[in-house]
């Protein structure tokens, strides 16, 4: 987690939702522990804010899409919308 604390922002941007959430939880826990300098606190807060934004982005990034994959005669796969009514 310490490594993640020092990870540059670009690295954070590649985290999955789950990883970003775990990192955010760790940042909060660390900040709450109070075992950090004031400078580190500011750093942690900044990082945590970024992570929470990444989490929120990941949640919103999924677009509703329901498809079915059909195998064509030549063996290739075709993706078509799927409606089940």
């Amino acid at each position, binding site marked *: 987690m310490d490594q993640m604390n020092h990870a540059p922002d670009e690295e954070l941007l590649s985290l999955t939702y789950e990883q970003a*959430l775990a990192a955010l939880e760790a940042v909060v826990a660390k900040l709450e522990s109070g075992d950090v300098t004031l400078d580190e*606190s500011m750093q942690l807060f900044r990082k945590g804010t970024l992570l929470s934004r990444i989490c929120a982005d990941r949640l919103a990034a999924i677009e509703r899409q329901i498809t079915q994959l059909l195998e064509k005669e030549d063996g290739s796969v075709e993706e078509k919308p799927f409606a089940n009514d």
Partner: protein
Amino acid sequence: MRDAITVAELNRYVNTLLESDSQLNPVLVKGELSGVKAYPSGHIYFTLKDSAAAVSCVLFRGYAGRLRFQPENGLKVIVTAKATVYDRDGRFQLLVMDMSADGLGALYLAFEQLKRRLEAEGLFDPAHKRRLPLLPRAIGVVTSPAGAVIRDIIQVLGRRYPNFRLQLIPVPVQGEGAAEAIAAAIRRFNALGSVDVLIVGRGGGSLEDLWPFNEECVARAVYASQIPVISAVGHETDFTICDFAADVRAPTPSAAAELAMPVRAEQETRISQLRDQLARALNRRLDQQKLRLEHLRQHRVFRQPLERLDRRRQDLDRLSDALRRAMGDQADRTGHRLSVLCGKLDALSPLKVLARGYGVVRSVPAGRTLLSTALIQPKDLVDVTLTDGTLRCEVQQITDWRISGDGSDESRA
């Protein structure tokens, strides 16, 4: 005649015989449960019987804990057991390792046999099971495109997470070729890598209907999947080989959808909670620092910076007074001594002597005070200093008062 052996040796020997017989170790036996007795130790004792025979059985705690049902008197079961002779009383008994409900015929036996084989091979190993992702970017479903299962899944997903993404590979879920199609669909999703979690399943049905999910090829495809698999076959009470091989078994397709996707609102709440916690933690941190600073500021040094100085100044005043006092005493003592000395000096002053009529005679030009006439000749000049001035005089005559040999005065002129 051979030597007699002990009873213990006899029982041990019979056990050796039983253990070496592959037909008995293990052996599947079907019968009816009677005299079921569960002990506080966790072991379960019972008799397995049919219309013509009975055999004692013991189900040790470790095995009993794995049963999916409670053994009850009258229940028809198939036990998987090891035949032994109990050393203490020489009674023949079965050490039961597994028990399943009978009445399902050959299919069930096949199920039990395949299950046992794959389990021994490690296909159900908990250590091999993958964790489900918290938020799959897309969910893959392997089931029939018709019917309630896919509809239920879509409904539940939509409730939990309106903007979910789902890919379906439609497959037949019963009958000839269904198992192969299911296995192929699982492999296809793995080849495409387009989804983060798989739901494989079908609705309830007879054991025959569910059978494709008990086929070895499905179990192996599930086991080999790099994508975590949720198995959702039939109803809550139906267990299939696919369930055992899957990373997670869901009792129903709807439950599978719940396992696959988080509730978006809950996640959002969690994030905003963390965000609040973050802000609170930082504020607390800042408050702590502020408090510390305030505390320092309250310190007397900062509160009244002049007080210290004033006190020092007071010290200084007090010290200079003392010094001055000490100096004054010293000066007084010195002054007194001086006046005494001055008095003495005054008394000795030649001026005082001159005032009484004496004069000091000095030679000219040497200016040497004359104490005797010896160095002076008539006509020499001398200076005579009186109390208020000096007389330059020429010596006209010298009278020597020194006692001569004849006692008479001698005058020079």
